[in-house]
């Protein structure tokens, strides 16, 4: 059933070279009687865009929330940047999480703060000794990279859906994360803005050499951004491969995602 695109040997070699940034083994998570993640095995390589597809309610968002620590998993192993997070102390866990960026489905902007303050908020807490000039230049650079340089003094309520996503992305990127997690980055956007966001995800990959997990229902976004795709069904990874591999899968259910 699982169509592995990368062989076990290559995976092992990548791990040896420090190229595996996230590794999940037999990850399980239930909410009451609802077993959302039954047995997830997943590997994310350095500089790779991994797209996770699946029907609504299959636990895709829960999966990335486990990585960033917003949801605690019940069983299994999660290794991030070479550290098994079940074994590290709280202080180290916070440091690991600082290397992970997260773009929320709703963008999750602080609506009582301006665009500048949204970016300043995280930055000030992580770089406590940064000068005012340094802070300002980092903010301008981050906004320039996502095409929002002119919106610096605007409030989130004044921004369009696409601009909000861009700001959410800038807020994550300003902290120079090694891993980016995108939770449905193009949901609710028109096709043109979706394309812009997809291109931005590719730009981020090139500019910052980030490794990304992209949760999406948008097949066009998946086609544009994915180096590799995983399909989740009933809480397990049902298929894995490139866009073309899965679009031509022998399994009609897998193919149905790409039609």
């Amino acid at each position: 059933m699982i169509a592995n695109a990368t062989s076990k040997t290559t995976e092992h070699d990548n791990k040896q070279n420090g190229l595996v940034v996230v590794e999940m083994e037999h990850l399980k998570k239930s909410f009451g009687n609802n077993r959302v993640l039954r047995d997830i095995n997943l590997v994310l390589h350095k500089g790779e865009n991994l797209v996770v597809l699946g029907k609504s309610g299959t636990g895709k968002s829960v999966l990335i929330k486990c990585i960033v620590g917003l949801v605690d998993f019940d069983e299994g192993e999660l290794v991030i940047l070479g550290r098994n997070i079940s074994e590290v102390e709280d202080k180290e866990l916070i440091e690991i999480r600082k290397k992970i960026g997260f773009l929320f489905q709703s963008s999750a902007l602080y609506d009582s703060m301006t665009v500048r303050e949204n970016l300043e908020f995280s930055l000030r807490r992580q770089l406590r000794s940064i000068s005012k000039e340094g802070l300002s230049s980092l903010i301008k650079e981050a906004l320039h990279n996502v095409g929002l340089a002119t919106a610096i003094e605007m409030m989130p309520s004044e921004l369009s859906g696409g601009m909000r996503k861009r700001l959410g992305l800038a807020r994550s990127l300003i902290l120079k994360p090694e891993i980016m997690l995108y939770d449905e980055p193009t949901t609710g956007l028109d096709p043109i803005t979706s394309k812009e966001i997809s291109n931005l995800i590719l730009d981020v990959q090139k500019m910052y050499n980030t490794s990304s997990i992209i949760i999406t229902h948008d097949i066009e976004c998946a086609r544009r951004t994915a180096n590799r795709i995983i399909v989740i069904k009933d809480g397990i990874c049902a298929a894995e491969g490139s866009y073309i591999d899965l679009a031509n899968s022998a399994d009609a259910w897998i193919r149905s995602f790409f039609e």
Partner: protein
Amino acid sequence: MEQSQNQHHEAEIIPEAFSRTISDSLINKFFLEISSLTIFTLRFFKEVFKPPYEFSELIKQFFLIGYKSLPLVGITGFIIGLVLTIQSRPTLEKFGAVSWLPTMVAVSIIREIGPVITALIYAGKVGSGIGAELASMNVSEQIDAMQVSGTNPFKYLIVTRVVSTTLMLPVLVVFADAVGLFGSLVGVNLRGDVSGHLFFSQVFQNLEYNDLFPAFIKTFFFGFAVGLIGCYKGFNSNTGTEGVGKAANSAVVFSSLMVFLIDVVAVQITSLFQN
């Protein structure tokens, strides 16, 4: 016949079992809520002394919670002082004790009415505001975003708000008491001619340490309860817009109830020391 009896018996059992299930679930819910609130309170005390401290957010909350409540608290205090004076005059007149009006109103306001009414207004304005704000931050994933970006949302959102509500309510109560006494002076002068100097000297001559100190101390507890319950309800709200309304509503109801409970306990403790 037997079947009919069985059916009748079942019909009696089902409502009883049903009501037992409901009462069990209500009791469970009550104790779960109490334990959850206790854990939340303990976490507050754990986080409040631990650096880093969010001073700029604390100052901002002082302004929003304290300064922004001054007009409402002031108007309420003035009306209470005025109305209490007008309402008390006829009764005191019957006993020929009108000269005691300033003292009676002052003791009532400072010991009980000022702190309790201000705390209730505070619960309505500040408690519901905190509940709704945090719940809407919860719904829009802003709290998650804070956590992801390496900020401790409990420290940034909860600790600052609870500290602010605890420290600002006593200040507001003192202000409300002062404005209430001024309202009383106006009330006295509606049907008489009493100078401000005479009014206030009569008030302060008859006020004792026991009138002021316990009333002032209990306002810290009122403020703490209002802030803590508002934060607890907002921080643990259900997702969805319905959760925002529920959080705001239950923050007001529970914190108002807590104000009365604390007041009962405070009065008992005060009377123990006075006896």
